[in-house]
């Protein structure tokens, strides 16, 4: 297997989330869909334990996805807190991370109390970058694949 060229590492320090004392591997990312974008970056969790990437229902709706039109949310998702119902967005969403542009597919969990606006899982950030978590040093490093952009 040929080695995949990677960018220089970008060091990102873990950050706290509102109302917690915990430190999290978080990225501030630009999210858009068909020209509709948020006025600011969205704080997003980098989650190696998530097989799919997640958008909060309010984010998906703002981007223009009509969740009701997608039908009833489907069962089948599972997390440590139990089963969940979700919609799979029919089109990929544009994401910009540190100047790198990507299109990722997202699942929207039918839970407005979800504490994350966006979760980047194995099918998004982990497919386009090497990520080295160094929690004991309070930072993680990202090296983007150079064969994609």
């Amino acid at each position, binding site marked *: 297997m040929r080695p995949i060229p990677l960018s220089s590492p970008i060091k990102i320090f873990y950050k*706290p989330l509102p109302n*917690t004392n915990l430190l999290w591997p978080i990225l501030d990312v630009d999210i858009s869909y068909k020209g509709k974008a948020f006025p600011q970056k969205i704080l997003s969790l980098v989650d190696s334990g998530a097989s799919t990437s997640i958008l909060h229902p309010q984010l998906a709706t703002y981007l223009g996805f009509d969740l009701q039109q997608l039908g009833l949310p489907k069962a089948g998702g599972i997390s440590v807190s139990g089963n969940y119902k979700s919609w799979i967005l029919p089109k990929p969403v544009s994401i910009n991370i540190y100047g790198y542009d990507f299109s990722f597919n997202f699942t929207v969990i039918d839970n407005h109390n979800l504490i994350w606006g966006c979760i980047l899982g194995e099918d998004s950030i982990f497919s386009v970058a090497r990520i080295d978590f160094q929690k004991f040093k309070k930072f993680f490093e990202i090296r983007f694949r150079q064969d994609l952009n």
Partner: protein
Amino acid sequence: MKNKQQYLKGLTPGWASISKDSKNVVAHAKTLTELIKKLEKKGNPEGVITRVANRFTSYVG
């Protein structure tokens, strides 16, 4: 960097915009749409949008 929690203490669950230097809450609202309207009124200053959850001490995703 100061802990954001200091600046978000007392905020009810919903959505917030934190300044780029993580030192201030730019705006806060119950829904994302309300937050974005507030940001527009402020001229869309730089920052990052985040959820504000109920206080918790641990998380298993």
